[in-house]
Structure formats: C-alpha cells, structure tokens
C-alpha cells in the first residue's frame, strides 16, 4: 500500500485528484466512442463509393471492422491506463504488492 494511508486529509485530496484524472480519461474515450459510433453510418452510402485496402467499400469497412477494432482498443486503453498508470500513481492500486 502507498504511504500516508492513515492521513485522512491527504487521502481525501489524493482521492479527488485521482477521480479528476479518471474522469478526464473517461470523457476522452467516450468522445472517441461517440465519433466512431455515430459519425460515419449516416454517410455509409456515399462512403461506399470510395474503396480501400483490396477494394472494400469504405462505408461498409468502417462499420464492420474499423469501429469494432476501435471499440476493443478503447477498452484496452482504459483498462491498461487505469491499472498501470492512474491507480498506482494515487495509491489506489487494486493489488497487494
């Protein structure tokens, strides 16, 4: 455990900083999630005139592979950042060392 756990005031301040950083990460990822979910489907038909890779219609590819891949990456980014960076930094690490 991180030092200073018995210090209530310090713990409180530490917690608020922790929560702020957590929120910033969540808002960033949610914004990316929103763009990736809702920005391209309305234009799918127009985008299908563009082809990428070996000739996939762009609109179809964005929904079927790109968005899904980004979703998975978002989950990984959140989990890894929380576990490896933010939790230990403020002493709220979920594991006993």
């Amino acid at each position, binding site marked *: *455990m991180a030092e200073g756990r018995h210090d209530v005031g310090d*713990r*409180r301040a530490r*917690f*608020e900083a922790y*929560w702020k950083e957590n*929120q910033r990460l*969540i808002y960033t*990822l*949610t914004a990316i*999630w929103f763009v*990736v*979910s*809702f920005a391209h*489907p*309305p*234009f*799918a*038909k*127009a985008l*299908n005139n563009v*082809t990428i*890779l*070996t*000739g*996939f*219609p762009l*609109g*179809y590819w964005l*929904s*079927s592979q790109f*968005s*899904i891949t980004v*979703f*998975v990456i*978002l*989950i990984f980014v*959140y*989990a890894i950042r*929380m576990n490896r960076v933010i939790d230990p930094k403020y002493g*709220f690490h*979920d*594991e*006993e*060392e």
Partner: protein
Amino acid sequence: MSTAPMSELAADINTHVRMTKVQRQAFEKKLYWRYGLFAVAVVVFILTIMFLELNAGLNRGIIAILFILLSFGLYGIIGVLNFTRKFDEYYVAGRSVPAFFNGMATGADWMSAASFISMAGSLWLLGYDGLAYIMGWTGGYVLLALFFAPYIRKFGQFTIPDFVAHRFPERGGASRLVAAICGIVTSFTYVTAQVVGVGLIMSRFFGTSYEVGVFLGLAGVVLCSFLGGMKSITWTQVAQYIVLIIAYLIPVSILSARFTGNPFSELHVWPGAPGDHRPGIGAEYPECIRRTVHDGAVERLLADQLCPARPDPARAGGESRLDRDSLGVPGLDLLPDDRNGRATPHPDPLLHGPRSEGGADERGLVALLHLPAVLHGAGLRGLRAMGDAPEPGRSADFVAPGVGEQLGRTRPGDDPRCEQ
C-alpha cells in the same frame, strides 16, 4: 458523475480479501497450464476425429454424439468441481479470476448461441443494417467497461442494481428499481435468444422435439450454475471459449480457403502480402460485399450455393436427424460437399428459411432477440435511415433459425430461390 459519493468509493476500496502476489502468480500459472493443455487436447481430439472420419469412415452421427457428450461432460465436471457455498465465490467468483481468463469467459458469452445463430441470420437478412447489432453490442460493451464494470468491483457490490443504489444513495430505492427493470428486460430478451438456440441445437443433436431439447439444455445450465454459481460458470466458460474459438475458426478457414485459396485471407490486406499467392484474388471480396451493401443480392448468391439444380437421392430423406452433415451449425452447411462444388440439398427448414411476404414480423423478432443491442443500435439505424431508408417489403428469407419454425411458417421446399 459528481464527486460526492466518491468518498464511499474510497472507503470501500481494498476492503475485500485477496490473495498475495505470490499466491496469485502461482494460481495463474496453474491456470495457464491447465487450460493450455485443454486447448491442445481439443485440437488433438479434432484432428483424431478428422483422421478417423477420412480413413476409417467414422459415422457422422457418432462424431456428433462424441462432440456433444464430451463437451457437455467436461462442462459438467468443471461445474461440479467448482461446487461452492461461499457467498463471495458463488456471486462473483471470489473476485479472484485473473483478467485474461475473465476476458475469455466474457468472450464465450459474446460467441454464444445468440450470436452463433442469430447474428449470422441477421447479417444475411439485413446486410449493412445488420452491422448495427454488431456495432451495438461491441460499442455498448465499451460503455459498460467505462462506466460500470470497474466501479462494481471498487464499490464491493455484486450486481448492477446494488451498485446503482449504492452510487446514488439519495434515491437508492428508485434507482435500484430502474436498474433492476433494465437488467430484467435485457436478460430476459437475451435469455430468450439463448434458450431458443439451446433448444434447437439439443433437439438436432439428440433427435428429440424442440421442447425436450430446451429442457435438456437447461438441465446442463442448472448443473453448471446452481452448484457453483459464478465460480463454476466462469471456469466453464473459459473452457467453452477455447472450444468455441476453435469451432469458429475451422469453418471460417475452410470457407476462406475455398473462396481465396488461403485459410487466413485476412492477410490479403495489400497486394503481395504474406499468403497472397494468387494474384488478384482480393478482388473477389469487394464484389460479394458490394452486393451485400447495395442490393441485398447476397441472398441470391447464397441461394445458388444452397439450392442445387440436381437433388441427391441418397440424401433426400429417410435418414435420422443425426446423419445430416450440418451438425446444427448453419455455416457448415454452406460448404459444398460433393465433387461439383455444389452443396447437397438439405430438406431442412433452418436452411431454406421461412418465406414471408412482408417480412416485418420476422424482422421485429430479430430486433427483439437482440434488444440488448437495440438501445445503441437504434440510434445508428435512425441516423442511417435519414440517409438511406431500406425499402419496405424486402424479402426476409432468413431470420434467426428456428424463429420461423416456431411460428409454424415452415414449408421446406417451397422456397422460390430453389426453383431452377
């Protein structure tokens, strides 16, 4: 989210008992060994069966029974071995499942009967629009992972209603009620799809009626879940994940090899990529997909595959349900299995699908079965409808298999696609 109730979070953090680091590492090592051996055993088993079928002419009915008995027996054994009456273990697997294995268990949920059967049908039926379901439940999972999952653990709660009530204490009762209703609606629709799938698969394997199949399947669920709760469910699902991912890869690889000459055609992303042995092969994909996207003609494409000009008398009927080569997996039926590269005919309502004039009922049912995704998916569909509304009355030839059957709409053989 406000910061007010977060002091409680701070109070609850690190309150539950955990293993020490050394214990946890030993535990994980043991898990990797066991499930690694299990994965190897599954592959060896499949190869053995394949060898026996090709060389000793092993009967397909026996193969089906072997697969289902061994896998169900295994899940049963894992369920019984994980018998527990400890509260923490029963409801949250003791909060001790390593992330990697928890991910495998969640992945097994993703790939379960609902997606295995209904998703294929939805995509086939809806084309581009069907992607809303895939984006819906994958994108929805992001929200779950950002807003719920970590805090249920950190608050030391067991369920989403528990957590929501704890998180908004000033209106604990009301928020708990809302969360519970959402949970029930979501699980009910999801379980409906699952139980239909379980009933279909069990009845096809054991040759029983659909109703008996449902009870057989549910008996297995009870065996796994009531004995050991979340603990046995999680460890069963990790084993299921290994079986499922292999079971998914085999037909996809075979299809891919047939269409492109390369079992892993994802490698064809650029010309001359590793595995790109046949020049210009990548051009075959866009045509298929363009048809899906633009005019739904993929149904005709698949009808050509499914409905051969020449019926094979040897397979036309009078055989037990087990002797069919479908094994209850729709995708496998697409494999052309005679020398002409044509699929043999299946007098099977699940394949030829119900035919209806309007298609609205079936489409509604598909939507109902996927309600967990509808919240997110509806937004996508609404947005998309502004740009390109799908024409009404497009044929609904293939819905989640079994739905049409249950509705009594099935008349195998009168599918117009098969008139050739």
